[in-house]
């Protein structure tokens, strides 16, 4: 199948046990991308990335080269902040890249820094990634010694320092502006935009925030050219992408797939990928792109893994985590579980998200635990509508960040798909699945 022919851009080294070591990295072409990059004018690197069509892998899917070009010319210092907070439930791809190939990320950070003319980058790494911290700290030391970081990188005159910062233990700290506040030592709360980080970000200086996976592509793009990257995938979904597949599949895990060339069905059933649904059961529903994404039903199995296509059908590829639910799944319980996560993680800054998340969670819990009322379904939908007017995707925003308006996604989609199962909970005074 098509995706099997695509090159492994992000995961080429992972077949080796010692993929995280500098030796293996160097033996497999490591830092060649950085050497090549610093030998060229910075603007050319930006152009390569623009040509590649690479879109951010952190969730919003914003074109990376374009984001870089929003930096105001001539304002220095400017910063690159690497988002390694990976807090979205069921997303575990950055985790793997950090632990298993830290030098690839370092190389990507250095190339991106060179391209945007910044000399200090910050790597905000989820606090719970103990092994990741250990390996990244070690890799950073090695990179300095190797001459890939620090003053005068590979004799090019380019200086770059990377500061490793442990995350503050909140999902919201992965939201780019909350991340910046957290990095500055404040409470992790999103900021009002404008100003956007590109204009006033970290310490009020122009800042680019990029996801770990986004930057892990840099060396390949420099070495093979943006056009080669853009030749992979289709339309505005270029290159390959790491998907974290979990739920009721036989082979959960991270898979690098070429975008737009295969479908969710391929992802779930291909023996080299998901390997089919557990126990040969049927897909009841699946989440195409993280906890914030509206659910899809089996009718969308043939939707291609294409950012725009998924969005057009009312959801998103988001952070790249795909969760499969088979027939044995209680949709109420699943929606409740996700809502509970959001209620726990809402930063509390804006009213609809702070109060709405808790309210929705309490109502869902009541239904699941047998004290639901028929009118609760309309109540849920109406409260959801007050968070995200219109209940469509992308959501109408009433809040500072998009966490709030994402909360309704699992609720309204599960009610739309499984209203009768909700009503069974109400009628039977409990969950039919337990």
């Amino acid at each position, binding site marked *: 199948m098509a995706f099997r022919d695509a090159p492994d851009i992000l995961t080429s080294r992972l077949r080796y046990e010692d993929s995280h070591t500098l030796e293996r990295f160097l033996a497999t072409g490591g830092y060649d991308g950085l050497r090549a990059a610093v030998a060229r004018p910075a603007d050319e690197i930006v152009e390569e990335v623009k040509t590649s069509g690479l879109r951010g892998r952190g969730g919003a899917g914003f074109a990376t080269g374009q984001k870089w070009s929003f930096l105001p010319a001539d304002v220095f210092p400017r910063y690159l902040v690497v988002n390694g907070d990976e807090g979205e439930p069921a997303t575990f791809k950055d985790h793997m890249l950090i632990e298993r190939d830290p030098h690839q990320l370092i190389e990507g950070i250095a190339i991106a820094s060179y391209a945007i003319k910044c000399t200090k980058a910050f790597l905000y790494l989820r606090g719970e990634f103990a092994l990741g911290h250990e390996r990244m700290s070690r890799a950073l030391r090695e990179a300095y010694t190797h001459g890939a970081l620090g003053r005068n990188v590979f004799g090019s005159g380019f200086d770059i320092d990377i500061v490793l910062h442990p995350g503050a233990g909140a999902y919201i700290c992965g939201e780019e502006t909350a991340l910046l506040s957290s990095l500055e030592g404040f409470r992790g709360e999103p900021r*009002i935009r404008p100003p956007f980080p590109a204009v006033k970000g970290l310490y009020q200086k122009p800042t680019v925030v990029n996801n770990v996976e986004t930057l892990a592509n840099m060396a390949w793009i420099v070495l093979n050219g943006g056009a080669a990257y853009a030749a992979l995938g289709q339309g505005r979904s270029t290159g390959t992408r790491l998907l974290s597949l979990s739920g009721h599949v036989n082979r959960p895990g991270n898979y690098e797939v070429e975008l737009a060339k295969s479908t969710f069905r391929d992802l779930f059933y291909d023996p080299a990928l998901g390997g089919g649904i557990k126990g040969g059961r049927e897909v009841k529903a699946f989440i195409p792109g993280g906890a914030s994404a509206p659910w899809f039903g089996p009718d969308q199995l043939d939707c291609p893994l294409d950012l725009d296509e998924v969005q057009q059908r009312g959801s998103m590829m988001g952070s790249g985590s795909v969760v499969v639910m088979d027939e044995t799944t209680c949709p109420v319980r699943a929606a409740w579980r996700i809502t509970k996560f959001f209620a*726990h993680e809402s*930063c509390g800054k804006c009213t609809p998200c702070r109060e709405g998340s808790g*309210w929705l969670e309490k109502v869902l819990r009541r239904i699941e635990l047998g004290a639901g009322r028929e009118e609760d379904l309309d*109540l849920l939908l109406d409260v959801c509508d*007050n968070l995200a*007017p219109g209940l469509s995707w992308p959501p109408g*925003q009433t809040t*500072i960040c998009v966490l709030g308006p994402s909360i309704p996604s699992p609720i309204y989609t599960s009610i739309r798909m499984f209203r009768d199962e909700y009503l069974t909970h109400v009628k039977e005074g409990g969950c039919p699945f337990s």
Partner: protein
Amino acid sequence: MTEQTETKKDTVTVTVDGKTFEAAPGELVIAAAERHGIYIPRFCWHPRMKPVGMCRMCLVEIEGVRGLPPACTTPVAEGMVVDTRTPVVKKAQDGVLEFLLINHPLDCPVCDRGGECPLQDQTFSFGPGESRFVEEKRHFEKPIAISELVALDRERCIQCARCTRFADEVAGDPLISFVDRGDHTQVLTFPDDPFTSYFSGNTVQICPVGALTASPYRFKARPWDLDQVESTCSTCAVGCRVNLQSSQNDLVRMLGVDSEPVNHSWLCDKGRFGYQAVEHDGRVTHPLVRKGDELIEASWSEAYAAAAKGLADVRDLHGAGAIAFLGGARGTNEDAYAWAKLAKGVLATDSVDCQLDDGLPAAAVLGLPRATIDDACRAKAVLLLGPDLKEELPVLYLRLREAVVDGGVAVVELGPQSTGMTRHAKTTLLYRPGEAVEVARALTSGRDPMPDAGGVRGEELAAAAGILGRAGEGVVVVLGRPSVAESGRTVAEAAAVIAAAWPQARFLPALRRGNVMGALDMGLAPGVLPGRVGLDAGREWFSQEWGVLPEEPGLDAAGIVGAAAEGRVQALVLLGADPINDFPDRTLARRALAGAGFVVAVDTFLTDSSREADVVLPAAMYGEKAGTTTNIEGRVTRVNQKVTAPGTVRSDWIIAAELAQRLGGDLGFDSTAAVWAEIARLAPSHVGLTADVLGRRENRDGVVAPYEGEGPPRHEAPVEQIEAAAAVHQGETLPSEAVAGAPEHAAVDEPSDDDDPAGAGRPPLLTFAVGDAGSTAAPPAVDAYALRLVAGRRLYDNGVTVRHSAHLAGLAPSPRLRANPYDLDRLGLGTGDRVRVTSSRTTLTLEVAADTGIPRGSVALPFNLPGEGAADLIDGTQPVTDLRVETTN
């Protein structure tokens, strides 16, 4: 956009709800709409703070923008079309209101805010009748005290961050913060660190619900029982505008009013809660006359008679120069004018001083070119040579702090110790007490390299001079008394040096007592007459009206106290003055009270000083009388009466007028309005500043004297008469025994056509130059074994207001002697040690504390804290006070 169109227009055109108007670029939609009569509901937005966009009550629709942006964080843009009333907006706003209510306890019946609560109001107007929320509400322990003054009920909090933003952005005291997240988010203090901000009461005022309540006000009244009047805070001389609220003739609350040039709606806690003193049970409510060792209650006639006889006897025996007046800086302008007229125009003594040698010479304050608070906040640089503004003029501190933090104004601080302003100053030059003149000379010398001066290194002086420039262009000098332990004359002389070297510099006086500026303007100081004129310059102008005038310039407070101690001043009239606690040198003050044969105290409480008086005349306090007051800028505003005074208490001006009659004089006015009319006619700096002018809409924020506007338009109704009529109702006319036969409304001077406000013959206003401060003795050489005393004030002190305000009294700190760690090391001392401190006056035992904000060679001890302290150590006859510090064992 081409460059042309970009630069041409300085407004943008926006349309809100179909109404098209111009707005300033960068203005927020919520503010622009409000200016054009479209009110967008809000909870978290406050016009004096940066927007946070937290409550989401102000969501609107904007053409071409996805979702519902908040009007409070969205700046207007050219061609923007905003809709605040679409069904989508309405639903979202209803949704927000519902969200805010689901966890709200709805204990409105027992909530201080019930009846004036934006949440309650909005719910009544727009909210759903019934709650759809059937779950258990969130619970917190309620309420918890987050400081001595403020209680927090977290269940009522709607997380608008007004309080936390105020504490952080406005007050610079980030002591409250959000903790936890989601619907557990709550406001809290940090462990073991209460919300001890001088400005905490503002958070109560701006909290949109009853989550924050003020301990002095809790459960005192319901909004519908409250009656209010706009006035000016007279606790210090910033002159913040306030609403004074009463319930059943008791003052119960004071709220800040947003005055653009002055207080931006903020108040300090001393000003806000100091009204408690007015309601204190210990007020003197009836006249007292001494019989032997005791002060016995007497009738007003008896008391007047006793006071008049005592004063007349001294005048007849020893001459008018043997009578002196101290104080008078706490009343209204009308009070001060009446006392000045009694002293100078009836008794003909010039030994009158509204300051207690704790401020600056009148000539300097009145004669230097002036700046307003706004001038200071917009200056290129501010030179601060004065007290710790945070402690003495708190809201001026807030204004300047904002100017530094948000406006980038450069502050150069010059003082004997670090202050609350130090962390905002570009540089702080710590000089040796008594040597301000040397520092001023060096700073303005333009020399390169700069020599060391007054204990300040040349490089530091050069850096400061670099910030301030060479001609004083754009420089505002905030000028006050940095320490009462060094002579005020040296500070005034330093100011004169600066004024001479930098002709373009302007001065903003930083004197603290409520109406000290008004009292100085009204002539309550030696050598001056009302309206900022010198005694001799004004002699001709005033003698026509007043009849007699003092022959010779009199004594200032230091002179009066010294002369009384030696028996040369025989009669002392204390106008709310307590020299034993407020004069720098307590030993001398005690001797003065003992030495003066006859003492009259016009006071609100019996103080250490008024207890020694022969006659005590009870005076009305703030809130009990109407009139005008003058702030540090010279801004004249109205103060209003809200409650009736207890007992038979009277306003000062009435007491002065009565005394005048019994001394064979006639002050010639019988209402507050009439006093003001005379001031507006006679006092050269105030000519034309009539009640009518003050009452105009555009003068809501007061009028800065000297008044330069045209005279009163003749065609307008004589407002004075209306005022006079109102004053009659408020009991503000002379008791009928005094003005027997005077027709009730006829007492007002009608402006007549031959009154020429631009008056030929009007004396010139004072100016102040080098040498005018009088002789300034050089401080003695520094003795290596001695430490030189610095004595500044604390906001919470042992003064009448704090002592008699139940919730403030406990906040005065206990005195500690602070010294540079280097000096403490040298003496083998550490923080917490007790030491013996000896001056030429006395020896005290005190606790020491290390403080790097005190320069080597100096020690700081706050002035006027409860108990023994700086006043006992200071030798007022010396330019500085040197101390010996030894361990107690």
